[in-house]
């Protein structure tokens, strides 16, 4: 647990980003900044295919009753991501 926090802190320093997609609550919007280097291969490609590319506007639409996964409105589509995936996507605040 503690180790994970350190690992994440370290990555924040490297990638220079703090806000992650999984921290938004339903109704909030943000721009995608980048996808973490942790997420590679088909998983990264799939996220990009679904529209999670830098610059895209994303809005949290709803959470599953168990609070995970969460459905995001992106480029018109409604895409459900698990928390672990959303935590690998860095965001910057949307100017409302």
């Amino acid at each position, binding site marked *: 647990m503690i180790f994970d926090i350190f690992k994440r802190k370290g990555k924040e320093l490297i990638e220079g980003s703090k806000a992650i997609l999984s921290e938004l609550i339903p109704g909030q919007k943000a721009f995608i900044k980048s996808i973490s280097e942790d997420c590679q291969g*088909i998983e990264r*490609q*799939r996220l990009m*295919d679904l529209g999670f590319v830098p610059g*895209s506007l994303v809005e949290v639409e*709803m959470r599953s009753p168990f609070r995970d996964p969460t459905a995001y409105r992106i480029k018109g589509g409604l895409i459900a991501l698990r928390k672990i995936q959303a935590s690998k996507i860095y965001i910057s605040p949307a100017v409302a």
Partner: protein
Amino acid sequence: MSSLKLKSAHSNCENCPVHDKLNLQKLGVNAENADFIVALAGNPNTGKSTIFNALTGLRQHTGNWTGKTVARSEGSFVFHDNKYKVIDLPGTYSLISSSLEEEIARNFVLFGKPDVTIIVTDATRLERNLNLVLQMLEISSRAIVCVNLIDEAAKNGIRIDAKVLSRDLGVPVVLTAARDETGIYDLLSAIEKIAVSTDPVKARTIFDISEEISNPVNELDAIIRKEYPELPNSKWLAIRLLDNDKSLIEALKKGELGQLKNDAKKAVEPNILPQDDNDILGASNKLKGKLPRDYHDKLVERTYAEAAKIAEKAIIKSGEKRKFNLDLFLDKIFISPLFGYPVMFLLFAFMFWLTIAGANVPSALLFDFLVSTVHPFLKSGAEYLHFPWWLSGFLIDGMYLATAWVISVMLPPMAIFFPMFTLLEDFGYLPRVAFNMDNLFKKAGAHGKQVMTMMMGFGCNAAGVVATRIIDSPRERLIAIITNNFAICNGRWPTQILIATIFIGALVPAHLAGFVSSMAVVSVALLGVLLTFIISWGLSNTVLKGQPSVFSLELPPYRVPKFWQTLYKSIIDRTLFVLWRAVVFALPAGAVIWLISNISIGGETIAFHMVHFLDPFGWFLGLNGIILVAYIVAIPANEIVIPTVLMLIVLLTGAQNHTDSAGVIFETDSIESLGGLLKNGGFTLLTAVNLMLFSLIHNPCSTTIYTIFKETKSLKWTMVSTFLPIVLGIIVTATIALIWRLNA
């Protein structure tokens, strides 16, 4: 090739689209000697299949892509005397993420060289869809962009400017609302125009983003063009090779590249020396080092950036959204923590109730017809033709009777269950169920969509296994395949209900009997669900640990399904498919059942020897030899377990007065006589409990085993799916028998 009628000057009436639409002749499966090949590509959930149906009609040829477990549909139509064959490509979000579907779609456009490629897009999600459109146009310019669902978009205050979009993309753009065939005539005309044109395939110019990338790309492009001057998409090829595209590198190694030339429409001789291609590959490998590390990401971002620019110009927002948003309202109910699960539970309970209750009458009618009417008729026919007793026994009492049993028990519930399932699927509700349930499945290492394949398994495990194709992550798909057997299929419900009614219901006062026996059946079904989670968890943490996994789930907008179309398609694709496989396996099973009960060795039938041989082991499991023999010969279909058990009891106890009773076991007044028969055969409460458990936990039927092999193409996983449940079943029943006897 026939002349083009489009521009001929006829009377006004003949020129109007309504008249011209009559020139469309949907030919369904009759796809021989087509003049032109049309490929249909697009994102999932864009109404691609509605376009396909609008062009070709409902009768289509469905199968798999050669050697792949990805569905392929073909249909055809005639328009202005030209015959077109339409091939429905798998729905994909992109062409580069190397999933099987994407590889198939891309390779077909690249190597199959369709005369026209229609790229179906969803007007309400145009920007994301343009990502695929741009990727497609980089391969072929003989394309049409079909912006579908404009009716849905209009409701959301979105209009698409086809002219602007067409100008920016460089290919024709047609607006359609395929549900009511709006725009289909325009689409047909556009198809014809491109099909008959002799313009060579061109590729869309690929805009570079930075010199860092464009320098190596141009360098490789020059090398490719030197070898293949006629290649329309050499730059695209260079980009893909530098991106380490495995399937293209393979194609290059096999010398398939020459097929990409425009003149290669006829069969191409592989006259390209492999040496040439190795040069290209070598150069590509060297140039890869010069590329930035995020080369791949930059490529995707470039396409999206362009898509965003184009979409912005083409989309006209009226801002007049309807005040009441139905999707939002429905999601508030279906996803709500308060109502989500109760609604789901009630809906599924209703579905099962309707399946079981609704199937009773047609099942009984079919049974009456096939067994009580046709069977004696066949027997007397055989007598009239002087068939020897063994031939009429083997064919009519063996093969025919078993098949008749399977059809009458299986067909009605499936013809009710599958259409309901497909309707919920098309409506958009089932993805929401997957969304609601994902957390539970995630904890077991599985995919939320497994809930859909599990539901399907309650109808038929073979169909459930095929349905796992919707899970695009290899590991989670395997888990769903292996555990599907723990959803009690339609062939096992009758066993559960019958045994629970006779043995469990009898334990309580008559007015509670119905409720208690139903609860017993529900408990067994829920135990199956529990086992699904436990086994999924076990598999994902042991043998499947290293398999690749990726999660994604799109929640499409709610759409009112086309009722009759859905009904027709689900009966053709699912019900008849499964029924046919079951019949194929029931025929030999019937033959075997008849043979073992009619061939005698040493004065006793083979069945007698088998039962006595298996009796000790059966006792150990709290079952008996009869049940085990029934499960062995009834591997092809669970439906015939109970009839086989009854037949064996009659055969071995010599209860001759029951020989005709097989025809009436569905009627409630004979439940008692049936119970008497089973008790005669040595059935106790322990036998009943363990039979219900064993019916849940045993190997899949042979239809399902065969389907698992076809879907996984792996002997190993087929074996795991077969033996894991049977071993588990032996352990569970033996343990219960032991505890039961210790307490007795």
